[in-house]
């Protein structure tokens, strides 16, 4: 264990914050989706780091579950994006404002 765990946790925290800022500031819905994937990856890194430092492989198993959820979310989210584009001809989330009061 030459690399202290706090390195991994710090890297994961910074990647997560980059993902959050990407979701909040970008207007292209596909880039927003990819920032969500970046957040999920950062959390996966935390899980795997703690799995090594506890010696418990439950972290790896939970990382599988996160990856499964990400795959399911990819399928459904991209289908929504395609349906959105087909109806509104735009991927800019600022222009999808029919429900706005």
């Amino acid at each position, binding site marked *: 264990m030459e*690399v202290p765990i706090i390195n*991994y946790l710090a890297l994961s925290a910074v990647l*997560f914050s980059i993902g959050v800022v990407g979701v909040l500031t970008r207007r292209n819905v596909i880039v927003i989706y*990819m920032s969500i994937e970046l957040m999920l990856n950062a959390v996966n890194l935390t899980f795997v780091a703690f799995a090594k430092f*506890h010696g418990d492989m439950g972290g790896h198993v939970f990382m599988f579950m996160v990856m499964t959820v990400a795959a399911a979310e990819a399928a459904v989210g991209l289908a929504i994006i*395609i349906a959105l584009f*087909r109806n509104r001809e735009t991927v800019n989330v600022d222009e999808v404002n029919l429900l706005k009061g």
Partner: protein
Amino acid sequence: MQLLMFYIFGFLALFAAVSMVVSRKPVMSALFLILNMFCLAGLYALLDAHLVAVLQIIVYAGAIMVLVLFVIMLLNLREKKGLVPKHTVVGQVIGILVLATVMLGVIAKLDLNAIKPLREMSPEFGTVAGVAEKLFTVYLLPFEIASVLLLAAIVGAVILAKRKV
């Protein structure tokens, strides 16, 4: 040596993540995210998580991101080159600094010497046999629920993307 590898992969992952968020073309963003996932797979290999590292490349970078690239090319967006406008980049940098400072402050307060290994690290740590032993005995219910979730996602995606329901 391991520390050097960590820094190489870590900084490359950070560079790829920031480039993903500031670039204007969605294809470049997707490619930078794939680079980020490869760097994370390298970090998983450093953490002795061999099965997880390989699956990250096969499933995440090799299936999910390819699906995203298909959708980007299907929508055929026309974007100008370069980065997002400068005021957006300034906002993003300030946001990242604030949020990362908050999270790093929380991490710095952790008492990491209190982590005691729960059990001895088995020689099968991180291999296929080790993960399978956990997945099919202790965590069997989440495994089955994950398969139901995938079924629901498949049905939902097919219905959502049809032209006429």
